[in-house]
């Protein structure tokens, strides 16, 4: 073939490929239906429920399509913030209740339209503490989801093996520590079984106890100061870190990064109610009991509760459709699925005495415990956790003095709140 023609046809081929690639590069979704982009942080059980709800919703709303992204927790906040700023964010997403204020004050949330959900109706339908954090300037900017209580899980078999009765709740922190010590097994000089699955995820302990130690909760909203830097707070931190440093009921280097309770190598675990769903997936044969965590000295029985909120982006051009979807996500029928398959607790008052939900003893226990729930009220989420985790690590890993570590952590947390305030 004439080299010139060959060269030309090759050039043509290159051009065609380039144009084709360029065309592919700006692929977008078909624009026949309204597409609502929905982001959620990943949790296996919740993902399954959302997918089920999507198919139900799309069946009854043929003009709406939901594009669902389940993003791992570690990246979730790193993506939400910048993408909302850049205008490429989702239409519907979930944020922790304590963070709603931050997003709202940046003007990033669209309130519920009155024709989708009137305020009076909303307030009559939902449990008060689950919507407390969602009302700003007289309007609701989110609907609650993922309502959780922090509960103590017992491994029945390990309890019985240690001569303990897994049906009995602990009345005090000391009782808990004593039981944990007897549930701890050592082989040689290394841990073989942890009394409590603690080092894997200590934040549940911070949330539960820092909130229930004082009537004001973890943070005094008026003065933006934390409550745990007083004597009772330091005493609790000391008790908590002593579990590792003195009683050795867990070790950060034992099964590092693994969930010891799920593999049956820990006697107890303080975890959100949804952990029951996780266990069903990770280790369905595990037999466990649920209890309220024991109160700190002088405090009433109770547990901290947390919730997230589904919110709609203020930049979304489809707020009506988006809020329809959010309302559906939190409807009574949907909440039944959330409880049954997603390991959540309902936020609607009507479901509290529901016989179908109460037929599961685990759920019934949690529903009763809800009456003693106190909402976790720090102003932030991962950033606050990082500060509290640092307190724990400096004491446990570095041997820092408890009072000093707590004082520094409290100062850091208050500085964080001041910095957020100026925004």
């Amino acid at each position, binding site marked *: 073939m004439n080299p010139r023609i060959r060269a030309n046809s090759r050039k043509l081929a290159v051009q065609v490929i380039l144009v084709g690639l360029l065309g592919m590069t700006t692929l977008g979704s078909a624009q026949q239906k309204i597409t609502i982009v929905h982001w959620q942080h990943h949790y296996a059980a919740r993902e399954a429920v959302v997918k089920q709800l999507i198919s139900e919703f799309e069946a009854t709303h043929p003009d709406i399509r939901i594009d669902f992204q389940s993003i791992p927790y570690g*990246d979730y906040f790193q993506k939400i913030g910048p993408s909302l700023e850049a205008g490429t964010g989702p239409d519907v997403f979930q944020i922790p209740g304590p963070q709603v204020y931050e997003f709202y004050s940046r003007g990033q949330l669209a309130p519920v339209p009155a024709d989708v959900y009137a305020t009076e109706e909303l307030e009559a339908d939902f449990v008060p503490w689950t919507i407390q954090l969602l009302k700003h300037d007289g309007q609701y900017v989110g609907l609650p989801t993922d309502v959780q209580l922090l509960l103590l899980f017992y491994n029945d078999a390990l309890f019985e093996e240690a001569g303990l009765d897994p049906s009995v709740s602990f009345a005090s922190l000391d009782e808990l520590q004593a039981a944990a010590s007897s549930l701890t097994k050592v082989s040689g000089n290394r841990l073989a079984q942890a009394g409590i699955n603690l080092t894997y995820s200590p934040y549940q302990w911070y949330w539960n106890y820092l909130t229930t130690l004082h009537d004001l909760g973890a943070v005094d909203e008026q003065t933006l100061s934390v409550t745990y830097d007083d004597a009772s707070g330091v005493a609790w931190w000391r008790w908590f870190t002593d579990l590792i440093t003195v009683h050795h009921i867990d070790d950060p280097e034992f099964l590092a990064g693994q969930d010891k309770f799920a593999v049956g190598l820990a006697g107890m675990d303080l975890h959100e109610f949804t952990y029951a769903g996780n266990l069903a997936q990770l280790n369905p044969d595990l037999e466990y009991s649920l209890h309220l965590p024991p109160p700190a000295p002088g405090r009433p029985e109770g547990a901290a509760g947390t919730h997230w909120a589904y919110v709609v982006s203020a930049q979304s051009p489809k707020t009506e459709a988006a809020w329809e979807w959010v309302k559906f996500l939190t409807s009574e029928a949907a909440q039944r699925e959330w409880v049954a398959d997603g390991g959540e607790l309902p936020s609607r008052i009507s479901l509290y005495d529901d016989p179908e939900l109460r037929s599961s003893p685990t759920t019934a226990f949690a529903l009763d415990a809800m009456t003693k729930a106190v909402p976790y009220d720090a102003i932030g989420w991962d950033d606050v956790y990082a500060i509290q985790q640092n307190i724990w690590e400096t004491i446990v890993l570095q041997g820092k003095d408890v009072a000093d570590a707590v004082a520094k952590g409290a100062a850091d947390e208050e500085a964080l709140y001041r910095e957020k305030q100026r925004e």
Partner: protein
Amino acid sequence: MDSARRITQPSAAGTYAPPSRNARRIAIIGLHCLLIAGGILALFPVFVMVTASFKSLAEVLRVPPAWLPEQLTLKNFREVFRQQPLYARYFLNSAIVALITVGSVLFTSSLAGYALSKFRFRGRNAIFIFILGTMMIPFEIRMVPLYVMVSDWHLTDTYLGLALPGLVGAFGIFLMRQFIASIPGDLMDAARIDGASEPGIFFRIVLPLSKPALSALAIFTLVGSWEAFLWPLLIVNSETMRTLPIGLALFAGRYLQRLDLQMAASVLTVLPMVIVFFVLQRRFVEGLTLTGLKG
């Protein structure tokens, strides 16, 4: 020979006697043994990764560890695809981005390299030094403004957005310039006299003669594009547009407890490059040689 004399001096102890035959043989055997031991160390993690991908989670967690899997089943691999059916799509995404990047880099680098080595014009040296200088600018500096630009132009979650920062590379220009400089200029002059156009000369003379450098550059760019992590992490939000490294990181991040699945996913992720490596082994190493010398 005089030159050699200047650098070597007899050892202080007097004349040097080469080691005996036996000593040398022992040394050689020792060397081989050391290299084999080192090779085992080098391959140990690979061995561990592959065997774990066939084990169940309980086997992986066992103490003391079972070095070989009890059964050779593909169930972990099946589970990975079940949990993340898009895994094959991740591979496709990486491949498309790599294709765009390699094409663009080869094209622009050879054009610029040719201009910088075979043309004489004012500012040539300044431009070359400028381009070399850009190699010193780490990606992280451009990261945030590039992110803002790409978002403004709605290029997040697109192949073009993914490939954008890497479309032109100073390193490639440098490589091609060095190489093309060694092509005799007479060929091009002759073609000009024959009336060939400049683009024609480029496509029909320079490019074909640059094949060795082009393949080396192609391999480098391919590896660089395939391995990119920070940029894709920032600009890809949609599950369907993830590249392979991001896909693996996010998958493993979701299944931190499931080491068996993590290892299976890791094996799947390294497979493409390993295959490419074995097929193009010689070119790979040649490419490194080419650049190592020029440094």
